[in-house]
């Protein structure tokens, strides 16, 4: 069938239109808080991050003396997974659609990282990142390297609102913990360093390797870290007994909590390059027939760098790829 005439209407969009729309979308991107997700894990993580910051507001007076007497630094050194009831997130969404304002009265962007820059190769991205970008030597399932993006450094300051946090506890009918008034109005500053994001794909399969120096969280001193950690865990739906036990055993200054809904994922400790790592696997079935869909992420630290490798791969393939990062 000769349908050449049907193509008469096609045009390239005007460059000015394309550029202005792109800029509008990107600027909305930079300012937008973590969005709500239907899959509870994403929301849980946004919430947990906020809670981890709250928990990071405390440190034991016995900790090392810093030159900045009223500040201490929180740096990710390890990950700990915590199972929680995913339906708790639905409750929280109903209470407040904008998860990021659950505990903070305001946020202030101190340094805007701007949109990430895309590079053709890891070598080029290394220059922008300021550190050598490591790449996987093994690409399973026919994966091929795609884009490499580098996000610049940024900084954000958040002010804690103790009343908001207490209201949240009340809304969730959590009575066994209370918010210490001493955290009200305290500022928490998060400084992020350049981060590198490498994407791989093969047909419908995708994988991402993220590499960065740990973000730093500056918190004021004199607060009880484990008490706030317990609050965070209770908000996630962890039982009172488990929340008390965990909050007293975790080093809140160096541990990132990764919440995993009991009905949607599983986790275990593994090693990557001899370092302790956390492997979280998504379980369940997909929309195509009876085939079980894989999805997993492994997180680990090496020296000053933190890594996350995630993809539509099975556990063995993911671990093989992680071990091959060099």
């Amino acid at each position, binding site marked *: 069938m000769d349908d050449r005439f049907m193509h*008469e209407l096609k045009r390239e969009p005007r460059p000015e239109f394309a550029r202005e729309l792109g800029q509008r979308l990107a600027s*909305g991107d930079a300012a937008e808080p973590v969005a709500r997700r239907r899959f509870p894990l994403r929301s849980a993580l946004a919430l947990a991050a906020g809670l981890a910051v709250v928990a990071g507001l405390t440190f034991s007076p016995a900790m090392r003396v810093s030159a900045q007497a009223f500040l201490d630094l929180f740096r990710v050194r390890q990950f700990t997974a915590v199972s929680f009831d995913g339906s708790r997130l639905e409750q929280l969404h109903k209470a407040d659609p904008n998860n990021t304002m659950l505990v903070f009265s305001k946020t202030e962007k101190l340094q805007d990282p701007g949109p990430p820059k*895309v590079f053709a190769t890891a070598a080029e991205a290394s220059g922008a990142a300021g550190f050598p970008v490591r790449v996987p030597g093994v690409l399973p399932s026919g994966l091929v390297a795609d884009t490499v*993006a580098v*996000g610049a450094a940024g900084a954000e300051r958040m002010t804690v609102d103790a009343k908001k946090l207490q209201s949240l506890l009340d809304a969730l009918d959590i009575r066994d913990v209370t918010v210490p008034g001493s955290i009200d109005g305290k500022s928490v500053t998060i400084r992020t360093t350049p981060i590198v994001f490498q994407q791989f794909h093969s047909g419908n399969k995708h994988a991402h390797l*993220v590499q960065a120096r740990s973000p730093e*969280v500056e918190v004021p001193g004199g607060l009880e870290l484990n008490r706030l950690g317990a609050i965070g865990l209770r908000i996630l739906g962890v039982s009172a007994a488990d929340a008390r036990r965990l909050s007293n055993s975790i080093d809140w200054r160096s541990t990132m909590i990764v919440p995993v809904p009991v009905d949607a994922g599983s986790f275990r400790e593994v090693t990557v390059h001899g370092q302790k790592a956390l492997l979280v696997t998504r379980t369940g079935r997909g929309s195509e027939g009876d085939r079980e869909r894989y999805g997993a992420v492994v997180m680990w630290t090496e020296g000053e760098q933190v890594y996350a490798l995630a993809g*539509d791969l099975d556990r063995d393939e993911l671990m093989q790829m992680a071990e091959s990062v060099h």
Partner: protein
Amino acid sequence: METHELALPRLMPWNAAATAADWEALYVAQLPHVYNFFRYRVGVGPEAEDLTAVTFEKAWRARGRYRRDLGAFSTWLFTIARHVAVDHHRRTREHVPLEHAAELAGGHTPEELAEHRSDVSRLATLLAGLPERERELLALKYGAGLTNRAIARLTGLGESNVGTILHRTVQALRADW
């Protein structure tokens, strides 16, 4: 996309940068397809740009709900575009005067320009006279550049049915061309 969202909370803004790079690349790749979908769907006037912008703005706001395991990004994006077109049609419900001036590369004679403008006009007029379903299928095929299979997934029609409708409609347009 959800899998690696498992471990990228707000304290680790890698997700923001990584996701932004993803979306930037998708925007660049999909913009011409969405724009031309609207050129075929609603006309070659400024509405095509306006509705393209609305589509991407909606998609960006809703990008957290995109689930890679449930289908290709283009399918998700054009689901939004179709809804935007339906909303636009409900709001206007009248023929919009067609734009006749088209931007063409230099080097054409006035006669060629006039002939081209005329062809754009003619096709736009013919498309405007089609039933909604047929016009949408043509917009998805020739504007968006989707395959019959992708169109079938979007519209819920069978792939074979999509092919038949497209063939019949193009034949009819050709007869009037």
